[in-house]
């Protein structure tokens, strides 16, 4: 392993063996989004109005509530993977990489958990 050019410092290291799972997970969640997001958009487009009573009644039904929770899991994971690739391309400083690594592993989980709690409150709470 050389210490001169950037290619010299990585030559011979081989694969990190983490890329394939990232790639497949990205594709798998993309297929999930192909079902979940059109379901959400068509449901929203077909609602007679978008006042509180209408959207609450919709979101508290089992199928929409399940779809919303799956969006919180599937779409957040897909977004996490995609944003990670973007950050890897544009952040080059070590400090920035550590910060990005922290945020990319914490924020999507926190957002998804908050979303799931919200949907559960809608689905199980009093109308």
């Amino acid at each position, binding site marked *: 392993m050389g210490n001169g050019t950037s290619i010299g410092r990585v030559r011979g290291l081989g694969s990190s063996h983490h890329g394939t799972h990232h790639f497949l997970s990205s594709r798998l969640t993309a297929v999930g989004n192909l079902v979940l997001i059109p379901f959400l958009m068509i449901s929203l487009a077909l609602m007679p109005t978008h006042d509180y009573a209408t959207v609450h009644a919709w979101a508290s039904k089992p199928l929409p509530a399940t779809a919303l929770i799956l969006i919180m899991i599937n779409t957040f994971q897909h977004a996490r993977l995609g944003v990670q690739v973007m950050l890897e391309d544009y952040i080059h400083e070590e400090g920035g990489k550590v910060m990005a690594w922290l945020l990319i592993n914490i924020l999507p989980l926190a*957002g998804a958990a908050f*979303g799931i709690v919200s949907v559960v409150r*809608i689905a199980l709470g009093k109308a």
Partner: protein
Amino acid sequence: MAQAPTKRPLSPHLEIWRWGPAMLVSILHRITGNGLAFVGLGLLLWWVSAIAGGPASYQTFLDWVWRGPAGGLQTFTALLGKVVLVGLTWSFFQHMATGIRHFILDIGSGYELEANARWSSLTILFSVTATSVFWAFVIFR
């Protein structure tokens, strides 16, 4: 990077190449994906949590994002909300079309120059058409 020579020649980058459809939809895939991730999922969380919060919090969401009854800043955010929602719709359709394009490229197909450019252009045609049809349905039905 500390030990790497700083004045190494770089391979030709963005400013060298003439823009083509494949380059455009490639960067659009990234821009729309990240837009959907930050703005789209952020707005989705606000919407769902506003519904969970009850009628008053949902009304606050509607007023700031769509209706704007209080005037002033809210008139602006209500207009911005409509622009953002149309933008998110277009972003989704564009990201979906280029995502399906990636599935096709993943199986090793569609790399011939002419076909690649044609399918790239078609993703834009699709996203603009689908966005128009979606909002025409929402507004005029």
